[in-house]
């Protein structure tokens, strides 16, 4: 609001048109941008204003969660793009650098927090933080390129960011719907109590797998296209004139690669612990497949994911109007210069990708391998688990969510507040084999302690001080009103 009001400060109306043509001095423009950005960033869930996301998303019913993640967060992105590119269309490079840095921090922290979760919906909510970060990376790069007058690169980065917006809506919606059907059927949200659901819920598992593969940015699905476009935008940064940014942007590219790999690890964990292995819970699950309306929703999202992955040029054609309006050029001309099958963002020699051919290629080779080698169908024997000859395996010996992410927790753990407690109650005589082990792990977000707790405490302190004004006696209130009237009269003379 403050941002918009600064904008409207020196002008003639509240419409976007009027704001676009208003001339604002630079300091006010900076203030307007940062205020508006802060507001939209809180809505989008950018670190450090992200703490509401993992609390709110899991609490909602799953279909609402998928809409929240898929659509609501994107309105904030719309706001940011509208304010920056449309209303304030001239800006220095360090605004873009600020957006890029916040995007990178959100991406890395978001995926690391997601890896530490064992509640399926909280994990997905933290992943939304990460994906918003990736979108902001695209937008930040676009801002930097635009401020240096490189319209083709700016268009490329903007399209990358917007493509990821669309992708995220599709695969996050799919994943939340899948989590919802799991929750509906088993009554559990804690991954560590689940397992083996692939046998009882085959459709949900397969569709959830498509969501996992998409979000892990693996070809031929859609997540890969937007990550690829973002990487291409990063790789074109040596064209920038400013030498300091030229050296720092590749670090950003490395961080993006790190997030991509961590996201893949996170979804191996999510899918593996929920659907694969044996049931890890205590009581018998009465799991059955989700009903047809739920499946239909998931199938539609899954088909959209595949479509966005195989036919990127079609969608880029649709999105190009936006790039044209904001940066002055389109990339669709060069992007589909070789036909609808090939995505060549800048030029053919530079880089090219064909989602369709990769998809068809994988299908063809896998089918060929299967048909050639699957010669004796009757030669498969089902036996109990081998496990290197260890016979006494039970369902509690499997890896669960906490143990899967342990190596990563060890390495990156200093970013969180982690408390690990182990209590052994020993057996007399056998020191090495305790009777009972109690293990407790708590992982907390550091931002609660740094940002929110001080603010909360400060506001409590302030309200206590102000509360002293409430004396309870009528004379005090009359004196307050009298003093206020005198002050107003003095100032309005």
């Amino acid at each position: 609001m403050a941002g918009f009001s600064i904008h409207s400060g020196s002008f003639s109306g509240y419409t976007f048109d009027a704001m676009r043509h208003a001339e604002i001095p630079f300091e006010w423009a900076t203030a307007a941008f940062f205020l508006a950005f802060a507001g939209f960033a809180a809505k989008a869930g950018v670190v450090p204003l992200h703490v509401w996301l993992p609390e709110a998303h899991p609490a909602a019913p799953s279909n609402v969660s998928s809409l929240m993640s898929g659509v609501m967060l994107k309105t904030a992105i719309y706001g940011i793009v509208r304010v920056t590119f449309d209303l304030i269309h001239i800006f220095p490079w360090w605004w873009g650098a600020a957006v890029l840095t916040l995007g990178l921090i959100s991406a890395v922290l978001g995926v690391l927090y997601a890896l530490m979760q064992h509640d399926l919906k909280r994990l997905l909510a933290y992943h939304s933080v990460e994906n918003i970060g990736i979108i902001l990376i695209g937008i930040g790069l676009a801002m930097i390129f635009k401020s240096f007058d490189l319209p083709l690169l700016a268009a490329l980065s903007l399209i990358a960011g917007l493509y990821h917006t669309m992708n995220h809506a599709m695969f996050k919606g799919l994943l939340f719907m899948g989590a919802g059907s799991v929750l509906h059927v088993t009554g559990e949200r804690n991954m560590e109590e689940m397992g083996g659901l692939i046998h009882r819920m085959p459709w949900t598992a397969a569709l959830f797998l498509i969501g996992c593969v998409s979000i892990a940015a693996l070809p031929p699905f859609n997540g890969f296209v937007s990550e690829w476009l973002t990487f291409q935008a990063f790789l074109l940064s040596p064209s920038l004139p400013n030498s300091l940014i030229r050296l720092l942007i590749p670090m950003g590219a490395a961080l993006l690669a790190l997030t991509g790999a961590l996201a893949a690890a996170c979804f191996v964990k999510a899918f593996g612990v929920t659907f694969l292995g044996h049931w890890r819970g205590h009581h018998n699950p009465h799991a059955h497949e989700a009903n047809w309306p739920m499946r239909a929703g998931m199938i539609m999202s899954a088909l959209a994911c595949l479509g966005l992955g195989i036919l990127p040029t079609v969608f880029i054609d649709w999105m190009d109007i936006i790039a044209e309006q904001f940066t002055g050029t389109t990339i669709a001309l060069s992007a589909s210069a070789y036909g609808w099958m090939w995505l060549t963002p800048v030029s053919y020699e530079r880089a090219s990708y064909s989602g369709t051919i990769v998809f068809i290629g994988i299908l063809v080779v896998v089918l060929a391998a299967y048909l050639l080698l699957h010669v004796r169908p009757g030669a498969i024997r089902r036996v109990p688990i081998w496990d290197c000859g260890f016979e006494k395996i039970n369902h509690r010996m499997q890896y669960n969510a906490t143990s899967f992410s342990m190596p990563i927790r060890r390495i990156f753990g200093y970013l969180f507040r982690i408390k690990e407690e182990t209590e052994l109650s020993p057996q007399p005589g056998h020191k090495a084999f305790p009777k009972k082990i109690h293990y407790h792990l708590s992982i907390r977000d550091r931002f609660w302690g740094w940002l929110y707790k001080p603010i909360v405490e400060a506001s409590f302190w302030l309200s206590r001080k102000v509360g002293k004004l409430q004396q309870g006696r009528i004379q005090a209130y009359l004196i307050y009103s009298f003093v206020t009237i005198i002050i107003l009269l003095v100032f309005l003379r």
Partner: protein
Amino acid sequence: MSVIPYLIELLQVIILLALAPAFIGWVRMLKCWMQGRSSAGLFQPYRDLSKLFAKDVVLAENASWIFRFTPYLVFGTAVLAGGIIPILSVDLPLAPTADVIVIVALFAIARFFTALAGMDIGTAFGGMGSSREMMIASLAEPAMLMAIFTVSLTNKSTSLSQIVHVIYSGQTLLRPSLAFAFLAFVLIALAETGRIPVDNPATHLELTMVHEAMILEYSGRHLALVEWASMMKLFLFVMLGIAAYAPWGIAARGSFTAVPLALAFMIFKLGAVGVGIVLIETGLAKMRLFRLTEFLGAAFLLATLGMLSFFILD
């Protein structure tokens, strides 16, 4: 519309399938010689694979379709990557399908599904292998990307055919940035293909396994496909390194008569690289899992130095 590029593509895939086990056999033979043992011969991997193909498949009771599908997928992505990386010639019809980033992503698909297969049966070893493998992958990715970045800075492209083409037509001789990037690539290749010092491919102690632990439950033709795919992965990483850093010998654009010569060059380079791999594997010991952050951090450092020295020194 010439049909020769398609023939070269087919030839390349056939050579990949046929020679990858021979390369592993060569590496194992050299290792045995270095360690003073007598080797099983260059063709032992072929015998292993045919033995596995002839055997029945023994599946755990609760194996799902992911477990059965993964070997075919892993094999398929390796073959597809083999069709894209220029091994014999730059003129491949499939080459524009993918650039270096896509090739890395193809291997990432294989890794994703292998990790899922590791978790599928529900043993402790499978989960352990998957968790370790994903950790190593997430640390190797930034270094890999930085090395790709450095190569794409000098060659102005990420498409492998274009990179080879630029190296042929330019005078890139002694560039420190490429030297650093090459060292980083060697370290990353060791991590991604699971060689010492990251993972011991010949170990039978389950707690030291990373890749082997994920495929512990496979048998019969599934195991044959997975083993063949990992041999192809090593072969392809070597080919990737050669194409990006030392491509002399690969037939240039439009020259098809140079293909047999390219084949000879390839075999020679493979032999030399095999010696290099064995020297590294015999000289180093397998590192503790959490020491790998330093190893992969060193790879990232080298790649970043390469990138920085491109701007500073060139």
